[in-house]
């Protein structure tokens, strides 16, 4: 082998190595080899080592230069195919594999034909040329396809990344939201706790208010009660004293020589009567004290049979004397129309007593206010009547006082509403009465009033 041919070999081979290196470098980049297959990438960059090896091999065994070139390309293509097979999961890699397959096969066949030198090449020259053309077009087409595939994949990847980013952002937002929600939950729980506490406090206050209202009305009654007790006590004292006198007279009569049996009998009859009177008035006083205690005691909320007529009568007197104790000159006619057939009615008698007390106190207040106007011929009158109706037991409390103006009538059952001067009324009387009758007894409490004529409250307690 001469030096000229050696140079020729090297020149041709060098050129091929350079081209191969360029192609491999370009497609290495295209396929992102350094990341996808780092070691193969390094090998591809060192394609010149293969070139030198082939050259040295050719020199040692004195092989024809174009054959060496062919060997180099075949090896390079084999390596490329192996590489592409290795990264076949990547779609553009598969496409490139598909692209170069016919080209490589064609090259292999041509090389083998040339190497064997059996004239096959000459015989099928046209076929080989056509195949080569076809292989080139195929190669170019599929490389283009690979490029567009890569572009699509890239676009998809970008889209995915964007989605991923969105997802992360949403996740971050979700976490923030969750944090806010938990913060809010804590705040709300705290608020609920506070509200519950406030509610408990309010309930306690309400109970205290009800008790205070009761005590206030009791305070109003104290003087009336004192008077109501004083009267029967006076009778008890007086009848006791007079009975002592009667006994003395009887003793004197017994010691006389001439006794008067008629007088003795009369004295004895009087004594018996007096003892009955003492018992009667003593009981009257105790019943008032009992009523007072019952009124101040917290309600048991239990219904028991009660004589509504007696209850009405008792509270009518208490209310009347209560007002009279404050206004000594006040005087009113008390009328009662009690239905004797009313019988015993199942009620919470303390509560109904409070309602009656409220209604009656109001009634007396109304007639007292009207009396102050000094109309001629005006007699303050408060009437209490009971009746058994088809709906149940009915109690009417009527007064001929000032009456309630229409504008006020709407509000009288509202808590804390009062027309009395500050400090004189709690404004809870009618509101509590309404609750006692409607909620406590499933009954009704209605009002009928005419300004300047009077007012009538009607309680209906169903059976």
């Amino acid at each position, binding site marked *: 082998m001469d030096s000229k041919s050696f140079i020729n070999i090297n020149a041709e081979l060098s050129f091929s190595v350079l081209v191969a290196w360029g192609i491999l470098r370009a497609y290495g980049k295209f396929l992102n080899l350094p990341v996808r297959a780092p070691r193969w990438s390094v090998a591809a960059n060192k394609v010149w080592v293969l070139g030198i090896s082939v050259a040295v091999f050719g020199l040692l065994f004195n092989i024809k230069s174009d054959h060496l070139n062919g060997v180099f390309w075949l090896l390079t293509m084999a390596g490329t195919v192996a590489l592409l097979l290795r990264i076949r999961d990547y779609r553009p890699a598969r496409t490139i594999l598909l692209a170069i397959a016919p080209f490589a096969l064609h090259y292999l066949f041509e090389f083998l034909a040339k190497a064997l030198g059996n004239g096959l090449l000459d015989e099928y020259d046209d076929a080989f040329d056509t195949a080569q053309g076809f292989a080139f077009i195929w190669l170019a087409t599929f490389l283009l396809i690979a490029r567009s595939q890569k572009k699509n994949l890239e676009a998809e990847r970008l889209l995915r990344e964007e989605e991923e980013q969105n997802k992360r952002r949403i996740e971050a937002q979700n976490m923030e939201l969750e944090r806010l929600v938990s913060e809010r939950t804590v705040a709300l729980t705290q608020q609920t706790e506070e509200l519950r506490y406030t509610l408990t406090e309010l309930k306690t206050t309400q109970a205290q208010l009800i008790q205070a209202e009761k005590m206030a009305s009791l305070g109003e009654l104290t003087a009336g009660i004192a008077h109501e007790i004083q009267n029967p006590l006076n009778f008890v004292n007086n009848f006791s004293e007079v009975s002592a006198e009667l006994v003395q007279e009887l003793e004197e009569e017994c010691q006389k020589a001439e006794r008067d049996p008629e007088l003795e009998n009369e004295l004895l009859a009087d004594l018996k009567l007096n003892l009955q009177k003492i018992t009667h008035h003593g009981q009257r006083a105790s019943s008032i004290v009992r009523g007072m205690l019952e009124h101040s005691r917290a309600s048991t909320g239990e219904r028991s049979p009660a004589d509504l007529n007696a209850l009405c009568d008792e509270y009518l007197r208490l209310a009347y004397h209560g007002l*009279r104790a404050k206004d*000594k*000159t006040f*005087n009113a006619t008390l009328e009662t129309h009690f239905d004797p057939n009313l019988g015993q009615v199942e009620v919470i008698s303390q509560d109904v007593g409070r309602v009656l007390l409220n209604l009656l106190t109001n009634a007396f207040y109304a007639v007292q206010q009207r009396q102050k106007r000094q109309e001629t011929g005006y007699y303050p009158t408060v009437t209490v009547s009971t009746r058994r109706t088809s709906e149940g037991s009915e109690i009417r409390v009527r007064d001929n006082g000032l009456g309630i103006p229409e504008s006020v009538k709407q509000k009288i059952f509202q808590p804390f509403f009062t027309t009395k001067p500050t400090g004189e009324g709690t404004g809870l009387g009618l509101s509590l009465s309404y609750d006692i009758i409607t909620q406590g007894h499933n009954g009704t409490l209605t009002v009928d009033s005419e300004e300047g004529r009077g007012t009538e409250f009607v309680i209906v307690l169903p059976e």
Partner: protein
Amino acid sequence: MKILVVDDETDVRTLFEQRFRREIRSGQFEFSFAYSGEEALNYLHGHPSEVVLILSDINMPGMSGLELLRRVKQEYDAPPPPAPMVMMITAYGDTDSYNQAMQLGANDFLTKPVDFGALKEKLLSLEKL
């Protein structure tokens, strides 16, 4: 001496009749009873110039004792016959009622519980006039 007792408590009758039983028996005092102001006025109209003294409660349903006092003083404004004396009896010994009663011409003002011993002496001294 005829005395009209006005009180809405009916047991007052029994009490007076027993307390003054000796005086009643001896005919020294004669008691009549009315249970309201209206009834008292009716009685006075039905028995003109009989009653010498009226003992009246102040606080009664309907016509009050003070109203009765005013009416009595009004009706017997010009003698004859001479106006009956009026003594007020009340459970409320307050100055308001007292002043009002005195202003209307009450002859005396007693508070409950009535001291019957003192009342008896007052009545006896009145009788001597």
